[in-house]
């Protein structure tokens, strides 16, 4: 059923691989950050920015652009890597991550980073912010879409469900949420810390169209899910994407320990081999 060419898939996969490497390199250089969640989300973010969304790196504030809100703001290294590669700002900025004078703060700052649509980092707030953007599109009779990435642990915040009710009430079919279901949060597995299941049923009960994405790190499946999500009429859609935290580096996968710390030098050495990219250098 897929209409996506093998070339497109391959191209996006290669980009995601580059972004994985950049995530690890920039957090390694910074000495801190959140690589684990960045690695689970990066394939979806790559698909959004390189295939799905209407954005113009030369004109970040273009009125008709699609909006993307990174509600799980801590995985901003993934977003920064993509925005830099697209040319929203010079790539050298990546090596200033988390410094006081950097345009790339520890969590997204819309006033400092071109292409960042909302300052996030305190969890649970991006969905309602996205609702506001989607309402504005309707008021202004514009056809842009609003995409919002949520963490799975993040949906334990009450603000998420307030926004979920609001989006359904206002029938915001120009809003697409994507839930990065990597099943891990800081204190352990989500189902041990605070059960989220049955997650699809919860969103359906709140009036949302739910698209279940079996493998949120598989590019073809991601593109198919995004296509499906944009077809919904009269209600908001959420893609629940099963992903793997730390995806792409063997020892990081499905490990909670890499949520909020950079790799150590010996770990970095292994990761660099696993994510070898010809000609890659930290400039």
């Amino acid at each position, binding site marked *: 059923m897929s209409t996506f060419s093998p070339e497109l898939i391959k191209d996006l996969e290669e980009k995601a691989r580059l972004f994985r490497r950049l995530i690890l390199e920039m957090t390694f250089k910074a000495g801190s950050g959140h690589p684990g969640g960045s690695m689970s989300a990066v394939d979806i973010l790559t698909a959004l920015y390189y295939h799905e969304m209407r954005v113009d790196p030369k004109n970040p504030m273009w009125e008709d652009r699609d909006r993307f809100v990174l509600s799980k703001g801590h995985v901003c290294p993934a977003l920064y890597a993509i925005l830099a590669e697209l040319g929203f700002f010079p790539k050298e900025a990546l090596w200033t991550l988390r410094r006081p004078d950097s345009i790339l703060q520890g969590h997204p700052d819309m*006033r400092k980073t071109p292409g960042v649509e909302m300052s996030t980092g*305190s969890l649970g707030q991006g969905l309602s912010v996205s609702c506001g953007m989607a309402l504005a599109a309707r008021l202004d009779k514009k056809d842009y879409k609003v995409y919002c990435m949520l963490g799975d642990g993040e949906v334990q915040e009450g*603000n998420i469900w*307030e926004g979920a009710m609001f989006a359904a009430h206002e029938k915001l079919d120009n809003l697409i949420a994507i839930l990065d279901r990597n099943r891990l949060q800081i204190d352990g597995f989500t189902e041990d810390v605070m059960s989220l299941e049955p997650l699809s049923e919860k969103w359906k009960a709140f009036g949302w169209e739910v698209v279940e994405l079996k493998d949120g790190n598989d590019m073809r499946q991601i593109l198919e899910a995004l296509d499906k999500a944009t077809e919904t009429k009269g209600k908001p859609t959420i893609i629940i994407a099963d992903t793997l935290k730390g995806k792409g580096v063997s020892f990081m996968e499905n490990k909670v320990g890499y949520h909020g710390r950079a790799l150590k030098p010996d770990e970095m050495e292994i990761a660099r081999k696993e994510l070898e990219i010809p000609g890659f250098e930290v400039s």
Partner: protein
Amino acid sequence: MSEKVAKAATRDAYGKALVELGKKYEDIVVLDADLAGSTRTAWFAKEFPDRFFDCGIAEENLMTVAAGLATCGKIVFASTFAVFGTERCYNQIRQTIAYPKLNVKIVCTHSGITVGPDGASHQTTWDVALIRALPNMTVLVPADAPETTEAVKALVEYDGPVYMRLGRTPSRVFYGEDYSYKGKKQKFELGKSMELRPGKEVTIISNGIMVAEAMDAADELSSQGIDARVINMHTVKPIDEEAILKAAGETGAIVTAEEHSIIGGLGSAVAEVLVRKNPVSVEMVGVHDIFTDSGEDVVLQELYGLKSKEIVEAARKVMKRK
């Protein structure tokens, strides 16, 4: 005050001003959290149903939806009661409104003790303290209904986040309907206080419903032979340092009066200026670190020492320390 004094509720002025400004500015969008009838945003909703959204009993949603709209160029007014519009969504205000400096006007009614018989659960006397602590926020406490009308106009012209505190019950009106004072049309400027009465021996700096008490206190002090200046400090942040320092230099003693806790509000803001630049003595009239009881606002004002009597006592006390 023997003659009948004119009274009006600041929330009514807010509701009317929104409707007027809504006609002129198509980008104004108004949000509420199930209190539209009480905050008077329902008047805007009736006139402009497409530009009004009820966010439900969900203040976190209220503030974050407001932020999203503001990123798309909307001038957003978000209203509910002060207790809920500050305390139930403080982190949302901080993260998505103050930090990115978005054009959201948080206008809260039923502030302080004016919410009255609903009691402590509904009374906040630290909302100004909370919001004032946030960078980028402007904080307003208008003195009366005509000043509220002018303030709403100023908010629309100003591109940035604001918290404005309004009351429930009708309160005394000083200014003419056209914002004139003693027959002279005044200009409302954010951050610029107004001297309502000249004086040389002590200065009373007040805002909100306490401006009326300050004026009564100045009358009483005058009858006792004390010449008191009265300043209406409608903007708590950014505070009008110039007027404070001028008053300190010229009168040498300051009394602050606010319908708010003395912790973190107007008194604190004034003291913060004075201790650094001209440490004259200060007395603060306000609520003293307590949860206030149920009761009509006029009763509570007596009960918690928010009357001209306490301002007079404070003035006499502070003058002794000159």
